[in-house]
């Protein structure tokens, strides 16, 4: 019997092994209904394995995964009609047109009244409806994949690296479709290794590294908690700026283009630095001040994780 819960997905102490390889190591998290949840991590971190266990494709080695209140290992036939999946590296039948492909998948779900035209419009493929799959560009193929994932009007949509391998323009086209899903209030489970994608689309981000979830929260929270600094970049500096910053106790970094980047924790440090440069008569052509992004959070967290790894990883 389906248990009513505020969570669309509950993962409790999930572990998945392939022989000796520990792909997912005792992870737990929840995804609320109606939220866009991004699973962020590098290739091989365990994202796809985790999502495929939740999608009922793979069986967990241990732990419990509940989707819409149902155990994924026991209720596959009840779960499948209520979810939509865009698998990693989505592909379809080469010589079948966009419209025929959507119709085919709607028939698999026995959705005889599926709004094929509505789905084609949703993913902006009206002009390509009669085009065979093999003739579509990478971005159009992914958009078709998203339309197929929505063919049964699912409660939870899984999108496994929907923009991997796409050029920036195609990526933005897919993002527009995903933002449309967010507006419709669908629960979306997104795996990606693009930080800006997670930052733009997700309500909650979980960062996974080496099979472990190492941080979770909203993009703002993660940045606030893990990268609470301002990054100042002085452009085309003369030699004095670098020395001034070093003498003030900061750790400036000089790049090949004579730009100096320095991180400060407090806003009043910015004024202090600017005053010191002015007083010394040092020169620079421009100044960028920015808050850190999710990418810097990720680099910081995975770097810490590496340092926290078992002793055999430490240099002897």
């Amino acid at each position, binding site marked *: 019997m389906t248990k009513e819960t505020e969570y669309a997905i509950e993962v409790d102490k999930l572990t998945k092994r392939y022989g000796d390889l520990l792909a997912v190591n005792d992870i737990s998290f929840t995804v609320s209904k109606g939220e866009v949840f991004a699973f962020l991590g590098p290739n091989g971190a365990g994202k796809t394995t985790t999502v495929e266990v939740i999608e009922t494709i793979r069986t967990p080695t241990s732990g419990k995964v509940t989707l819409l209140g149902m155990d994924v290992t026991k209720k596959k036939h009840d779960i499948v009609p209520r979810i939509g999946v865009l698998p990693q*590296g989505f592909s379809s039948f080469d010589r079948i047109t966009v419209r025929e492909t959507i119709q085919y998948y709607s028939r698999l779900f026995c959705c005889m009244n599926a709004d094929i035209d509505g789905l084609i419009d949703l993913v902006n493929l009206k002009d390509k409806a009669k085009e065979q799959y093999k003739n579509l560009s990478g971005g159009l193929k992914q958009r078709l994949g998203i339309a197929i994932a929505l063919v049964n009007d699912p409660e939870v949509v899984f999108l496994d690296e929907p923009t991997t391998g796409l050029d920036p323009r195609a990526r933005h086209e897919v993002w527009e479709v995903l933002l449309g899903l967010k507006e419709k209030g669908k629960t979306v489970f997104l795996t990606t290794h693009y930080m800006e994608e997670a930052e733009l689309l997700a309500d909650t981000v979980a960062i996974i590294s080496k099979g472990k979830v190492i941080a979770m929260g909203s993009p703002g929270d993660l940045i606030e908690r893990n990268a609470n600094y301002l990054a100042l970049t002085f452009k085309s500096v003369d030699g004095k700026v670098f020395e001034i910053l070093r003498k003030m106790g900061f750790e400036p970094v000089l790049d090949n283009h004579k730009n100096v980047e320095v991180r400060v924790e407090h806003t009043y440090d910015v004024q202090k630095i600017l005053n010191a440069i002015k007083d010394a008569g040092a020169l620079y052509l421009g100044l960028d001040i920015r808050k850190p992004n999710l990418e810097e959070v990720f680099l910081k967290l995975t770097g810490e994780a590496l340092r926290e790894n078992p002793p055999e990883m430490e240099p002897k």
Partner: protein
Amino acid sequence: MNPRIIIANLVVKLLSFSREKTTMFFVIAFPIILILLFGTIFMSQDNVEYHLCVQDLDQTKSSKESINALEVNGNFKITMVHPSINATQYVRDNKVNLVLIIPKGFERSLIRRKFFNDLQASVTITYIYDPSSSSVSTKMDVLNGVLAGVNQELSGMPPFIKSVKKSILTKKYRFIEFFVPGIIAMAVMTLSLFSTVDSETELRQKGIIRKLSTTPITRTDWILSNILYQFTLGVICTIAMLLVSYAVFHVSLHISAWLPAFILLDVFAFVGIGMILTRFAREAQSAAAAANAVSLPMMFLSGSFFPIELMPGFLQKFAKTLPLFYVNEGLRAAMVFEDNMAALRDAAIIGVFAAVVFILGIIATKWEDDK
């Protein structure tokens, strides 16, 4: 099992097939080309009718009657060589392997023997032949048999043991009528085996199987739709082959319910083998190589192209272990000999084999890839 899902799959597969010109060629046109090619080559050798060149140096009524007797009793198609031509040169120039020479004085000797009972009277028939030819010895054997009959008749003694030729066939059949059922069996095997292997590996490599595993389609639906698809193609392909065979060679074949039954059994058996192969050979290239390793011995050793009686004994025994042999035999029993009992026996053998490999194929087909 969900019929709607099975039909949806079938429609997609047939649409894909209809848009894939190369596949269409190999599935439909290729077997037809084989029939046209082999049918044309062997039409002149139908019903073991040998071509025989005869030079009549006697040019009498008796010699002409003897030549007619050779045509009728020896089943020879006679070409006359003019008496003025050098027979040895004729063999070389015209690439024939045998010229039979009836000597001058044939009628005179025959009259002396027959009416005057002159036991000294005889004639010497000369065979001018090319020993490099593989069929010439058979021709000479047949000729010797006919001449032995003539000798016996002239000796005046009635034969103690008589033989009578009685064909196992109810009517006269030609090579093409034996060939077409074999090609149908082979074409359906190739279609089912390669199509299963190609589509399963391709769909798996492209990730379509993984996508399908997140939909309500079950493995059983998938496999049954595949069977239905291969069966549909098998029937289309068979109809095309039969139409061409009727139109070009005016074949006389008995069409009954056995034909679709054997096509279906052929499909089940080789889809099952295909599914087992794709379980172990997961890459498209290795799977295709494995399919070739299975299909080539079947094609050449199971009697699709020529009767297994022409093969050495151990190969004949091996042929009888091949599933395609029973499809060939069953189709010929049904279409050529109209022998329902033989067709039933062959159907039972291939049916048991098909059931076993099909069940093994279902077990071998995994959609979850926990590697």
